[in-house]
């Protein structure tokens, strides 16, 4: 028998480096997903720690009607879509907190009411005025179509988010621990909570163009929940979550490139894999820790 023809095996460089080195659209997608990963960490961890995981979900859906209106006005123009998304998401967040401030309704209930209405309006607008492909783009994003303008938008939104978070960090943590303590010193606690909702909205506006309104919440929540299996300390958990989100972004892009899968779900599935690994073998509170819980203990 002659020598069998074997396909040249794919090297590590081919797998990890070449896609980004050869294609400009992959480079832009990588930069975008790294920037999004960076802010997803702290914003996601704070949402989880403040027991607002579902609020994140709600606001991510409130992005849709604004984006749809933007689409009706200007077509697939990212700045207009982004502005529309920003306005409706902020509106839903403000309405929900307004209603819960004035009445004795809980904020999560009001948020659910408003985001469901917003979602229905968004789906109606898209189905009346757009095609199904447009709806798919809004819902699942198109990270491989990120252009220069979109990169600038993402960079601006992530920078503003990081600066805002740094400004409200201590006030936000203080009022999360003891909600009324800062009320004795003025209105800073309430202001910080509102600014935090603004950072959540900004994060979603930055994410939805690339990941879609449906998938964006995945990049925000999965790394944050995964990080809690490794550390209870808030700053450490934020750094870990950012790292997880950035790894998910890069790995998800490669997965999408090599296996010809849509990029948004690839990224979120990678984040899901990191979550599952953390759930099983994390250093704190994981299933592994619970199973090998031994009788061994310290004297004090």
């Amino acid at each position, binding site marked *: 028998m002659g020598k069998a023809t074997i396909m040249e095996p794919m090297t590590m460089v081919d797998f990890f480096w070449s896609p980004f080195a050869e294609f400009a659209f992959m480079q832009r997608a990588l930069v975008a997903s790294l920037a999004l990963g960076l802010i997803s960490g702290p914003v996601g961890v704070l949402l989880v*720690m403040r027991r607002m995981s579902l609020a994140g979900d709600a606001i991510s859906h409130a992005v849709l009607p604004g984006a749809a209106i933007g689409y009706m006005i200007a077509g697939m123009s990212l700045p207009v879509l982004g502005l529309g998304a920003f306005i409706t998401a902020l509106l839903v967040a403000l309405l929900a907190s307004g209603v819960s401030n004035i009445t004795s309704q809980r904020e999560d209930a009001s948020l659910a009411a408003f985001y469901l209405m917003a979602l229905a309006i968004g789906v109606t607008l898209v189905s009346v005025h757009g095609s199904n492909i447009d709806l798919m783009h809004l819902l699942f994003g198109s990270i491989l179509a990120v252009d220069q303008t979109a990169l600038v938008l993402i960079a601006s939104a992530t920078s503003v988010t990081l600066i805002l978070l740094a400004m409200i960090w201590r006030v936000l943590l203080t009022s999360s*621990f*003891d*909600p*009324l303590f800062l009320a*004795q*010193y003025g209105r800073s606690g309430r202001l910080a909570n509102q600014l935090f909702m603004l950072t959540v909205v900004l994060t979603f506006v930055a994410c939805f163009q690339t990941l879609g309104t449906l998938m964006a919440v995945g990049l925000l929540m999965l790394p944050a929940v995964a990080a809690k299996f490794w550390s*209870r300390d*808030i700053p450490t958990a934020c750094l870990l979550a950012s790292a997880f989100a950035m790894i998910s972004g890069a790995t998800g892009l490669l997965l999408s490139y090599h296996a010809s899968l849509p990029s948004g779900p690839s990224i979120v599935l990678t984040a899901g894999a990191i979550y599952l690994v953390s759930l099983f073998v994390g250093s704190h509170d994981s299933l592994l820790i619970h199973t090998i819980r031994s009788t061994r203990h310290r004297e004090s």
Partner: protein
Amino acid sequence: MPAALKLIDVTIAYHGHPAVHHVSGAFEKGSLTAIVGPNGAGKSTLLSAMAGLTRVNQGAIEFDQTDAQHHQIAFLRQLSGINQDFPLRVLEVVAMGAWQEIGAWGAIKGAVLTRIEAALAQVAMEGFEDRLIDELSVGQLQRVLFARLIVQDAPIILLDEPFNALDATTTTDLLKIIHSWHADGRTVVAVLHDLQMVKDHFPRTLLMARELIDWGNTVDVLATANLARAQANSLAWQDTASWCHVPGTLEAMNGKSHHHGAHDHG
């Protein structure tokens, strides 16, 4: 003695139903007072209004000019109002007491850090600076919150059921701190349920059951007849109750509480 804090015909209502009903009187400067009464008597509501966190529907709460601002009041709420699972570090929680110095961005160092360390030592929690709050027992958490009060260094200190669910040792240690505040000349007011503790440690008592029952020296206030009257006061509100019409009583009351049934509370 001048009054540190004056209640002038204070009424606080939820949805139109009074939780605190026409209460008047004064906390003297440097006094150590217990607020006592059955569940639902409006004790926590009154305390929260004194801290400036609950709006007064009628009447007014006045402060001595020198401690006129609310931030010169240190207020410790019930533990249930605190998110005990939120993993802040002990040092960060105690540093909250120095909010006016550190604010939202200031570093925790120098004189502030020294004050924090001293406060932690006073509550026997030195060495716990880097522990996470969710690792602490309830007693240790309450010690940390007392350290925060010490760092706040306020002339008026309000405590809402500070000894709930605490063991004897912790209670004794924290009572010592309350007595040291009293010795400093601070005005201390605590909502309490343990009448024996009130008799042993608090010279003054305010007994209320939505309305003021009695306010004065503990031995007199905690007389059996008073306690029976506090218990007998129906605290269930009625939908059909008619609106309360009290004429402009602010000046006329002058330190007395308004009562609808005619009785003399001395």
